[in-house]
């Protein structure tokens, strides 16, 4: 059987830098959790329902429904800083 030597067509990927995850909370009681609306395909309506769930099932937890400032393609340091300063955790939704 004759063989051929051919070139690989794929490009060169960058190095990956593994990033640490944030420490988790010991409890959600009394903590403020931001529900962050990514403003995509009615995600605000979904997060409203999630907020209602928290109100019913975890009333000691404080939820803040927050929309990102622009589209999800744009970084939003102002919102992230607010969450860092005033909140303890975040739920982002709904992305693809």
């Amino acid at each position: 059987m004759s063989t051929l030597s051919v070139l690989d067509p794929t490009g060169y990927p960058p190095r990956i830098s593994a990033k640490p995850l944030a420490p988790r909370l010991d409890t959600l009681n009394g903590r403020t959790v931001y529900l962050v609306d990514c403003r995509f395909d009615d995600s605000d309506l979904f997060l409203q329902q999630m907020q209602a769930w928290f109100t019913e099932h975890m009333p000691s937890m404080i939820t803040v429904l927050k929309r990102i400032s622009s589209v999800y393609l744009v970084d939003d340091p102002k919102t992230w800083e607010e969450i860092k300063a005033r909140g303890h955790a975040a739920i982002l939704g709904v992305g693809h």
Partner: protein
Amino acid sequence: MTLEAKYGVPTVAMHTDKFDRVVRSVAEVNGMPDLAQVFVPQPIMGKTPRELRAYVDGVDPITGRTVMQEVVEGLTRTRDGARGTIEYDRSTPRLVQPDSEENLHRLFLERNWTDNLPIVLPTEERVATMLSGTRRKPDEVVGRMRSTHFREYWQYTVEKVAVNAVMAGARPEYFPVILALAATGVTARSSSSSAMASMAVVNGPIRAEIGMNAGTGAMGPYNHANATIGRAYGLLSQNGQGGSVPGLSYMGNQGNNYAYNSLTFAENEERSPWEPFHVQHGLTPSQSAVSVFSGVRSTAFTLGLREKHWREHVRHLLRGMDPHGPPTLLLDPIAARQFVDRGDFAKKDALIDWLYDTARMRASEYWDYQLIQNYVYPRATFGEEPWATKLEAAPEEEIPMFRREDIHVVVVGGETNGYWRIMGGNYQKTEPVDPWR
């Protein structure tokens, strides 16, 4: 990912189940494979509050576990990823393991390196011949691409572009155009769920030098250069960026047939009543260039411009476009001259001014488009112009559907008739070809 890694806030990301593989892959290539991600059924869009509450109360379709239990655990249970910063390399070999021709064809298919049509195997000899089409060195980096905003950029060299050009069946004399396309960094394999394709318009002397078609059948499978340059652009995009695999790195819901050769054609400069497209974008007529459009999905068409109601006909065509997909008119020279005659558009700018002013709809209708809600409304509320001003319009006010700078006109066709069409898409950039010779 930014909140978690940069701001140290424990975060759960919610997604719909169709995106499980892609979002896990994105988290991995961003160095956070253990990111807390919870899934609900697709779609969210258009569901009632009761249906969305059922998602919240229901189970994650991927894991089968209760959605809210996963959310709470995602914020409170220590995850494997809390382990400090490390780095690791990924490498791409230059050569594939030698094998028989039949096995190599199978391998290329299995690895999703093709467009599922037969390819020319990129042997060292064939790649060397392709490289003779440029003075650039094989190891020179041409550019980088990624399939979506959240993925990492991959780089490619002149040799990698040549490999894909060989696979597409291109000839060495086409190679400078293919390199210019690669240098744009605009992928022809976007992973957008909107099933985008790209479009490439070639201008200048290179068109005649390599025998490109700007006339009859220019946008169809009737010219070797048009066909293989566009195909090479697509293959380079999917391989150069590290993949375009449905469910993993390609999410276009219906796919897009234009992607087979990225609608690559030459402008019919000789029969156009206006200046060539690349001259509008800063080059001279004696320079060669390729201009790239992305987000190409929608098409409208008609025949000619009738004397009595041509304005209304064009307006209705424009109104048929999604306002998030601005129009590029692709005019046969007959239609182009009709625009000059009917509308007195001696300059292309005058035609574009008229198109901008003609394409209008009620503000309430405009803002209710889903794509406008997703991508424009947030920017308007953020204060970005011209959308912030548009947002102030009364609901019944007729507002422009598009920004003027997003409307374009290209002349192509062989004058077998005056058919013309509107392509929805976004002009990205014009890249000179001559530096890649």
